[in-house]
């Protein structure tokens, strides 16, 4: 447990103190650290997952591989890295809607979705999605009929989940790039459906 006195110090000062001591002692490399920050700020995000979904919508063989071994199929498109070692893809259907939560902390498939949004890490989302998923989804604007079963997946230390949303109607003639633009982060967490064209 952190000391109470330490907790009262400005977190910016504490973070700087921590980093400066780690760097001075050669425990971390400043450039490596800066590179991690920059990568997740600028180049890893839901656009990766959107490409995966668009490929799955247009290539049945890829879809099958994605559902059989998410990590391997995602790596086919070049997406891999921390928190992506064991990704399981959950396919939505007209009768089953999947949604993802991490009840204990914030486990999330970084290589395809980037870092989680603040609501995903919020205590209310983490506790309520398990207890009353239909109500929470409605608050996100997703009203599901009683004939749709909702499955809530709690990320564990090993598995990171990603939802494969249903392909929207009216997209038959669209290519992968156009389709990817319809795939939002929220759809891949399961709190929304893919956008209509």
């Amino acid at each position: 447990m952190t000391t109470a006195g330490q907790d009262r110090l400005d977190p910016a000062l504490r973070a700087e103190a921590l980093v400066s001591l780690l760097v001075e002692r050669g425990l971390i490399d400043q450039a490596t650290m800066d590179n991690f920050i920059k990568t997740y700020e600028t180049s890893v995000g839901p656009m990766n997952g959107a490409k995966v979904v668009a490929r799955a919508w247009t290539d049945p063989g890829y879809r099958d591989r994605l559902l059989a071994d998410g990590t391997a199929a995602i790596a086919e498109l070049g997406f891999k890295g921390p928190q992506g070692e064991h990704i399981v893809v959950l396919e939505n259907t007209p009768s089953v809607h999947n949604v993802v939560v991490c009840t204990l902390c914030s486990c999330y498939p970084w290589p395809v979705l980037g870092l989680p949004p603040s609501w995903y890490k919020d205590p209310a989302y983490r506790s309520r999605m398990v207890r009353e998923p239909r109500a929470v989804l409605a608050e996100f604007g997703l009203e599901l009929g009683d004939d749709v079963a909702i499955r809530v997946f709690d990320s564990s230390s090993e598995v990171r989940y990603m939802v494969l949303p249903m392909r929207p109607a009216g997209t038959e003639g669209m290519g992968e790039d156009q389709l990817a633009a319809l795939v939002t982060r929220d759809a891949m967490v399961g709190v929304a459906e893919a956008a209509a064209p």
Partner: protein
Amino acid sequence: MTGSGGHADPAYLLDTSGPAAPPRDNGELVFTAPWEGRAFGAALALTDAGRIDWEDFRQALIGEIGEWEAAHPAGGGWGYYDRWLAALERLVSKSGLVSAEELKRRALLLATLPSGHDHERP
């Protein structure tokens, strides 16, 4: 925490839309202040260097979050990276990399420097 220290940092002044825009949460940046990015990057760099085990960090984070939630049932004042930073402090101290006392002493020293926070390290 206001995050006001980050406004001069070019990384926080990027385009808000278009293909070059950084990943956002409905307009919210991944890190709302530079210190959040540092706490995040330090945990990854320590893992990358083999100084800590990611699962140990995750468990420390779960512990910090659980303790905070038990102490704040109404949820007010929640800050995810506050918990992240506390977990990392706890783990580096427990692992013998940097003691809690050293962290505190350094932070207090930095507090006396003129430019406030989020300046370069001494």
